[in-house]
């Protein structure tokens, strides 16, 4: 139930337009949020489907798109290593946004006509060299330029795609002038349903929720090519798929999302929505996934999260948390960790930090390590005061 990601998509939905298009090329950095506030508030969710009932998802049907919901994303992150060590991180996300509710949109003669816009973010962290490569692409969900389908499962934006090549196995491909990623992800566990049977609340109002599932601990193999040099890699990937229609609570300013895959076969997902007054949104939640796939839902108060260090981005000037201590007493779980490299900030149409992390700690008194991804949004906002 990535509440903050959802927020991200709302921002992206606006920014993809305001930033990318109307501002032409000079979109560079963030801070469109000023102009986004009225934009988002005037936006209506009327006419879109709402996430209301638990246990509504079935597979493989719900691997595909849900155009009646306003926003949707397929989110892949993973930690990879070459045989002799140097680690890589990757993020590959395809966002879908309906810019008109289905009841206010009519398909006309041209196949280009659509109310579905797709946006993709692709980032690779080359930890050994301390380089971070991030790119954004945008396209309409028409004439085969971008789209998603359940059977066979495929999500694509132009030639960037995640496509089923065998049952439980997908190929992930994305490429820019500098970086090419070609991976095979093999499913090892059934989909994990977050929240209440996949219904993940974002606030107290009914319908202010998303459908949210993950396919975690996917065995990953492939090749990362950076500036012409290819590296054969393997590791673990995490997929989130979430769709919803909801308004953003006015107090929210950003969120912190954690996905950690522990070396004992378990996994942890947590998100905290930060509010302007410094408090955390009560609907913030998480899931602990046992090695057998059993999900233990976590609620605010079940965990303690402490930021031990921060890092200031030289690009955006934003100050991000850079070292954490997580404690979940009920699970006897205690972890401390930090990013594999500090600068994993995406300065695309919206500015956020999303990067590979490593944690170390104890569970049930046994030493444990974890790899994963953390997403930090809403920090570049602090620029607003300075501009």
């Amino acid at each position, binding site marked *: 139930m990535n509440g903050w990601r959802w927020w991200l998509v709302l921002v992206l939905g606006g920014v993809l*337009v305001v930033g990318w*298009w109307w501002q*032409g090329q000079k979109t560079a950095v963030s801070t469109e949020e000023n102009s986004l506030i009225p934009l988002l508030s005037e936006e209506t969710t009327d006419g879109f489907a709402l996430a209301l009932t638990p246990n509504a998802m079935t597979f493989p049907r719900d691997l595909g798109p849900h155009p009646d919901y306003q926003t949707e994303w397929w989110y892949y992150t993973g930690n990879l290593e070459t045989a002799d060590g140097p680690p890589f991180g990757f993020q590959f996300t395809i966002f879908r946004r309906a810019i008109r509710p289905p009841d206010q949109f009519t398909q006309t003669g*041209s*196949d280009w*006509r659509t109310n579905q816009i797709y946006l993709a973010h692709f980032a690779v962290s080359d930890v050994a060299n301390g380089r971070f490569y991030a790119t954004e692409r945008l396209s*309409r969900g028409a004439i*085969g330029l971008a789209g998603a389908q359940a059977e066979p499962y495929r999500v694509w934006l*132009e*030639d960037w795609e995640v496509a089923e090549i065998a049952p439980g196995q997908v190929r992930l491909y994305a490429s820019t002038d500098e970086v090419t990623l070609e991976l095979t992800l093999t499913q090892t566990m059934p989909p994990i349903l977050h929240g209440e049977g996949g219904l993940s609340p974002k606030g107290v109002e009914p319908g202010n929720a998303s459908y949210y599932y993950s396919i975690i601990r996917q065995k990953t193999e492939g090749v990362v090519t950076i500036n012409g040099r290819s590296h054969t890699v393997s590791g673990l990937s995490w997929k989130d798929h979430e769709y919803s229609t909801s308004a953003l609570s006015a107090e929210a300013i950003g969120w912190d999302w954690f996905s950690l895959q522990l070396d004992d076969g378990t996994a942890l997902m947590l998100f905290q929505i930060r509010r302007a007054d410094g408090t955390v949104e009560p609907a913030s939640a998480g899931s602990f996934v046992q090695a057998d796939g059993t999900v233990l839902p976590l609620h605010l108060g079940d965990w303690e999260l402490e930021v031990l260090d921060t890092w200031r981005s030289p690009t955006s000037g934003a100050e991000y948390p850079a070292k954490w201590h997580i404690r979940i007493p009920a699970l006897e779980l205690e972890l401390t960790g930090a990013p594999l490299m500090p600068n994993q900030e995406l300065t695309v149409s919206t500015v956020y930090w999303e990067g590979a992390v490593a944690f170390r700690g104890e569970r049930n008194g046994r030493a444990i390590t974890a790899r994963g991804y953390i997403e930090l949004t809403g920090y570049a906002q602090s620029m607003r005061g300075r501009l």
Partner: protein
Amino acid sequence: MIASVHQAPLWRTAWRRLRRRPFQYLLLILGVALGVAMTVSIDLASGSASRAFQLSTDAITGKATHHVIGGPTGLDEAIYTRLRAEAGIHPAAPIVEGYVVVSELGGQPIRLVGVDPLAEPPFRDYFGAVGNELSLLVKFLTEPNTVIVSAETAERYGVVLGDALTLRVNGQLVTARVVGLLQPADGVTRTALRQVMFADVATAQELLGMVGRLSRIDLILPDETAVSHVRALLPADALLEPASSQSNAVQQMTAAFRLNLAALSLLALVVGMFLIYNTVTFSVVQRRPLFGILRCLGVTGEQLFRLILAETAVLSLIGSLLGVALGILLGRGMVRLVTQTINDFYFVVTVQDVSIPLFSVVRGVVVGVAAGVVAAILPAWEAMRTPPQGTLYRSTLEGKSRRLLPWLTLVWLVLSLAGGLLLWWPQAGLTVAFTGLFAILIGFAFLTPPVTAVAMRLVTPLGGRLFGVLGRMAPRDIIRSISRTSVAIAALMVAVSVIIGVSIMIGSFRQTVTQWLSQTLQADVYLSPPGVATSQIGDVLPEDVVQTAVSHPAVIQAVTARHVAVQLPELGRTVELVAVDGDVSAGQRAYAWIDGQRETLWARFAAGEGIFVSETLLIKEGLPVPPPPLTLLTPEGARQFPVLAVFYDYSSDRGTILMDRESYISVWGDTAVSTIGLFVRPETAVDELVADLQQQFQAREDVLIQSNQEIRQEALAIFDRTFAITAALRLLAVIVAFIGILSALMSLQLERAREFGVLRATGMTLRQLWQLTLMETGLMGALAGVLAMPAGFVLAWVLIYVINVRSFGWTLQMRLEPGYFGQALAVSLLAALLAGVYPMLRLGRIVIATALRQE
């Protein structure tokens, strides 16, 4: 000898003279000014039109380095998906474009450009200034018939956000809503986008009837590797071209047209040069006594030479500046004419402003001053050679002039031969041909003095018999001042020959076109979509209209035609292809060449054995007769089509291909119909069918029904529109010549004040003096008129058989009408006689004693 003489006193003498005889100098200035005004106005008008097109093309091209273009109906949009989604070619942007007429925006053609806003940023950044409203983009993408126009255009026509616009597109009226206003930051873009309207690709496809098709795909390709990579991905009928090739093609398309205009405007300057020569010579001759004295005082010949040249240069500069100003004023009127022709023949362009590039202005001034100085060299040379205290009489000069006459005849011969050679040179370009034309024309001018001398000598006895002493005096006077009389005659002759030549050319052209129209258009009724401009091809008739018309009971035969543009890959250009299912000329069409028997020609054509090509294509591309098979780009790739015949076509100078409809459909799979020609049953009146069809298609804007007569009238109207600018140029040349002859003759007569004083003193009556004056000017006018006839004929011949063929590939039948020659004679006589009126009036006021005392 005095070592050095300061120039200042010399300048003072020049200034004093200028104040005493301002009128002469005024005429010099006017001569230069009119000549320069002509060249500048033409330059501005044709320049503005091509710049306007260039600007909007560049603006639309944006940062694209290459375009993918397709066949007659554009590109399959799947190619875009293939490039972008399968091959990952990035960045790439789709474009769907066409022309629409928007009544709310001044009723002028506007370029409707369909873009994918999400693919735009790497190419064009205009949308940065539309506004920060998400709702705007949402409307633009999701709602049909939404457009964005430039804020400037909107303001100009009082259109505001949310207004509905009525678009006439493809013959249909469609309502579109303005959802955004573009406010480009810089002036150039603002100008470029005035005649552009943006829509989403989906909207543009729907509005322009291009669902599933794209006009082109824009690409930014960094190197040749990328170019060949993309090329390998394209289907056979798609071409990958550098972005510059489109505007280059446009430049080439109109090059001949613009060169013709420029040459005609130069003609006016040549006439102006005669005028300058005349004035300067005159001022030198009059100052000979002064120069003689100055030489005695130590002024060197060189100083006098410089004085005359400098004097002329200053006056020419003033004239040129005036000319530029006048040219700019004229250019505003001229641009409409030029734009209309370009719209009729080449491409759709709307020019709202006449841009005034510094280059045109500078060139106008330089040409004006240079013309003045060149024309003054001879008289300045003459001034330089004034002997100190020599015989201060003009007779010296005139005596010399007479000795020059045989040499002038030789110059004429040389120039004519050189001109003939230049015109004959088959591979030479248009500029060479025009140089030849000018050489011949100037040759005729050189021939004028010897001819004048001979003619006047011949006329003298006749004059004596008819008018007594006066009749003998008049021609002798002309011979006596031959250095100036002959220049005036030559100027008038050149101007009048231009009138004759251009009139014959236009007349022959019109006759040829009329005849061609009556041969080619045999069908009784024509149906066509009301296009944006004549040059715009590709519009189609609605299917129900086609059905109704073809199956109408009064129709005995219907000939449908599909007009499209196809690529000729070997020649690197496009050509208009007309796919027909019958002969609209009912066998009357005239052919320049036929392969085999004429009787079986259409049967073979209908069987798909080959195509017909227009003579213009053949001539402009320098193809031999019989023509080799022509290579066209088809969906299956380049394909050769044998040529069965070459037909005459005066509807376009870009070349046309006729293909039978079945072959066209089998190759391109396009079954649309652009126009229909209907043959009416003999028992039905044409008007009845027209009335009936009009009744059936009542209140429809998407079909134009015209009878045979109407369509011919329309074609001739376009023809006349095209030549309106030529006619305007001809008129201006006449005005320049008229002022020239006026100034020359007036100067001549005024100069003779002392002589007239003597004549009056020796008993000549005022009435006799008037007769003498009129006789002299009349003789000069008549001679100019007579000389202009052969010159005009030669000019017409060159225009018809060399210039037109090389410029446009049109062969015309020359048609001489006695009227042209009669008119020319009348014009020159009238001009000459009118020029005598003012001196005559002055003569009336002459005080004999004063006249005698003068000088």
